[in-house]
């Protein structure tokens, strides 16, 4: 891990300097605030839009606020994860920065580890900000959620986002351009979306974790999820190991 600390510092300062960290934070803040609001007022807007047509729309509950948050994070959060990861290695190879950094006394493992750690820290900070905003607005518009349950739900959502980011990161390691790397993430997204709808194995995908996140946030009984969490975390480890195996002998 020679040079890891220095590279991680460089990575985080670069995320800040290029505006990626604040931009992702603001985007997640927006969706954290918006989710409970959309859940609360969508029925009123539907009734208003329906005009004289009599439509029965159920009164929104705290369950709708949590569902809206998870749905938004599954869409925009995943998009942000792909956009952040796609250029992390490929962009540096394309611009020649990777070659410049790797002639210095740093190992290739430290280079990759710092890249993904910086990405993971950015995603974690964004999910934290989103979670705090959603917690506050859910409390204001509905009722308070339990801190522990909601915190655990946010961690599960973060795991799902890191899974997509790790696969995109693998794509970014394999190729020299950001666009095909993003393609890898999008293919992973489509495959995960299809598999998540299948019975018995759906739980082993990032989208399958959404049900667990919802149960945790709403303090409902969540049992039998151990293997699902292990398999999803395993996907992250496998994708990162594959990245390392490719990158260690790659011509930069």
């Amino acid at each position: 891990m020679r040079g890891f600390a220095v590279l991680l510092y460089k990575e985080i300062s670069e995320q800040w300097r290029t505006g990626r960290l604040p931009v992702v934070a603001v985007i997640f803040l927006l969706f954290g605030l918006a989710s409970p609001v959309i859940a609360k007022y969508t029925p009123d807007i539907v009734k208003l839009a329906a005009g004289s047509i009599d439509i029965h729309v159920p009164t929104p509950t705290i369950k709708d606020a949590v569902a809206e948050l998870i749905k938004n994070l599954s869409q925009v959060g995943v998009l942000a994860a792909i956009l952040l990861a796609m250029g992390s290695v490929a962009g540096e190879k394309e611009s020649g920065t990777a070659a410049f950094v790797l002639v210095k006394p740093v190992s290739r493992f430290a280079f990759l580890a710092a890249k993904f750690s910086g990405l993971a820290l950015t995603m974690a900070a964004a999910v934290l900000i989103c979670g705090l905003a959603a917690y506050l607005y859910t409390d204001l518009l509905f009722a308070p959620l339990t801190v522990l349950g909601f915190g655990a739900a946010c961690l599960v959502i973060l795991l799902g986002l890191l899974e997509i980011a790790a696969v995109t990161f693998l794509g970014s390691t394999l190729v020299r351009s950001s666009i095909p790397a993003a393609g890898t993430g999008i293919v992973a997204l489509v495959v995960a979306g299809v598999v998540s709808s299948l019975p018995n194995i759906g739980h082993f995908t990032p989208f399958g974790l959404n049900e667990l996140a919802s149960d945790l946030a709403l303090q409902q009984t969540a049992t039998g999820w151990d293997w699902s969490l292990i398999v999803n975390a395993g996907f992250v480890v496998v994708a990162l190991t594959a990245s390392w195996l490719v990158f260690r002998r790659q011509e930069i």
Partner: protein
Amino acid sequence: MRTLLVVSALPLALQLSTSTLLILLPLVVIELGLVVFSLVDLLKPERRVIGDNKLVWGLIIVLVGTIGPIVYLLAGRKQN
């Protein structure tokens, strides 16, 4: 943009109270802020963008809802 439409139309349509308007205000500020910040950044003379076509990025920022500024800010800019 759906968020912006929802929170902009709500006060008039639903005759919301001042406290509810205050709850909605940050959403409008952030959503508009993202669009304005993206456009200001795009119009900087030294800014280079993927595809080298600022007009297309401008249209994406303005017309593709909330996703437009997100894609521009995270993936559309070339780093100097």
